[in-house]
């Protein structure tokens, strides 16, 4: 059974239909990439899955629960975390306060401390800057904070929206390495990326979104070899 199963999802902003009936699934342990051009509807899809937007129709199931109409703040507790587009760290809160916000739904203090030390181990920079306001971090550091914050909820599934956006090439490589590490340590990943080449390189499967519809889907290596994907998304 799929961990996340989206069926015939439609989402609209007023009269503009951004998602026109898409179906996809993510299985436990996978990295699934969702790629597509600007405005294809990738962010809209993720926001609908985590309850920031409501679906017009269709169904979203997570670990057997129907979460289509569930308010966003209840979804985290089911084990799904979302690293939003543009990072959206709390600029006026310290790095540590941001991380603690990530663990907001968790109660056990010692377990939270344990996760915190794991996050610090993965992102040593965050520990060095734990008392600094998040707004003063560099873009790459903010991305790490956004990821660390999501990991603080100890998610089974993590959704990431363009984690490499606006980062220098060194950071981009680091971020993709970290995504793989997160996946190897047992967290399933749904990855939205503009950087299709890198995303397909680490993904197991992928979906190509074109103006609200899924145009293509398949194994990541097959899509990497696909001529139309090469032309449209890989710049070859």
């Amino acid at each position, binding site marked *: 059974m799929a961990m996340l199963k989206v069926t015939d999802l439609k989402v609209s902003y007023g009269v503009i239909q951004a998602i026109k009936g898409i179906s996809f699934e993510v299985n436990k342990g996978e990295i699934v990439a969702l790629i597509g051009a600007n405005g294809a509807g990738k962010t809209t899809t993720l*926001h609908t899955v*985590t*309850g*920031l937007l409501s679906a017009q129709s269709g169904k979203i199931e997570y670990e057997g629960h129907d979460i289509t109409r569930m*308010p*966003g*703040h*209840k979804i*985290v*507790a089911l084990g799904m*975390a*979302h690293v*939003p587009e543009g990072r*959206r*760290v*709390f*600029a*006026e*809160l310290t790095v540590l*306060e941001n991380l*603690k*916000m*990530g663990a*907001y*739904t968790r109660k056990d203090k010692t377990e939270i401390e344990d996760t915190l030390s794991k996050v610090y181990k993965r992102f040593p920079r965050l520990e060095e800057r734990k008392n600094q306001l998040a*707004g003063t971090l560099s873009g790459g550091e903010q991305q790490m904070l956004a990821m660390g*914050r999501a990991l603080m*909820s100890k998610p089974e599934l993590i959704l990431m929206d363009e984690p490499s956006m*606006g980062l220098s090439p060194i950071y981009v490589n680091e971020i993709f390495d970290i995504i793989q590490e997160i996946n190897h340590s047992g967290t399933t990943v749904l990855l939205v990326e503009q950087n299709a080449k890198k995303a397909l390189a680490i993904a197991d499967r992928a979906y190509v979104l074109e103006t609200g519809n899924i145009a293509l889907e398949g194994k990541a290596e097959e899509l990497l070899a696909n001529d139309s994907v090469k032309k449209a998304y890989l710049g070859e």
Partner: protein
Amino acid sequence: MKNVIEQLINGLSTGSIYALIALGYTMVYGIARMINFAHGDIIMVGAYALYVGVSLMNLPIAAAILLSIIVCAVLGITVEKVAYKPLRKAPPLAVLITAIGVSFLLQNLALLIFKATPIPFQSVIQVPSVSIGGITISGVTIVTLVMTLISMVILTLFINQTRAGSAMRAVSEDKGAAELMGINVNRTISQTFAIGSVLAAIAGILYICQYQSLRPTLGALPGIKAFVAAVLGGIGNVPGAMLGGIVLGLIESIAKAYISTELSDAIVFGVLVVVLLVRPSGLLGKLKNEKV
């Protein structure tokens, strides 16, 4: 000299009340991005609730104070739920007009129930005045200063040190991201209205103990002054509201004593204009530096 110090203490005391009210404006603005123009009338409701408790129900003072605080908290939450929440995505002007409507509604309900004739009210604060070096400070003033200080310390600790306080700060920065953390945004907004209203109730109680007379419009003037204080300090900024209130009270008191009673309000607004010309986001407000 003695006179100056007395005026400063008076100013500090009036300013404390403005500050307590200004906190409600600023916290609500911070979290809901709206000016709750009905906030001043919460003070009025708090004052009448105290009167009902003390004079009509003959409750012990502490119980009457608690009643006033609870009534205001419930009212604040209810107003948000009924009037503002449905407008969360509406244009700011619609929200503003609704808030003004709520203000009129509360004033007119008070008018209907308690009539327009001012009701005299004996201060419930039975603290003797204190004389230091020939300067006399009234009991009401002492209690006002102490209560304000305690409220501010508790509020600051709550906002900065507790989980709910961090959640409040997170929601005021980014509701969507806060929701993704598992924070119930609606509940956090409710809590903020409740806290603002509790502070307004405390302000109302202190205010009515100074002025000793109840009218349905009694909240309007301190309400508008506190709003000015919140803007002066930097709307949305909690220490700014505290500072703005105190500064406003001091200016007003000095202006009344040494310039002109009639002109004191004009001077207060004049200071606001000058401050906003120099620092458009208020004394402690941050200039928005939009990051890409």
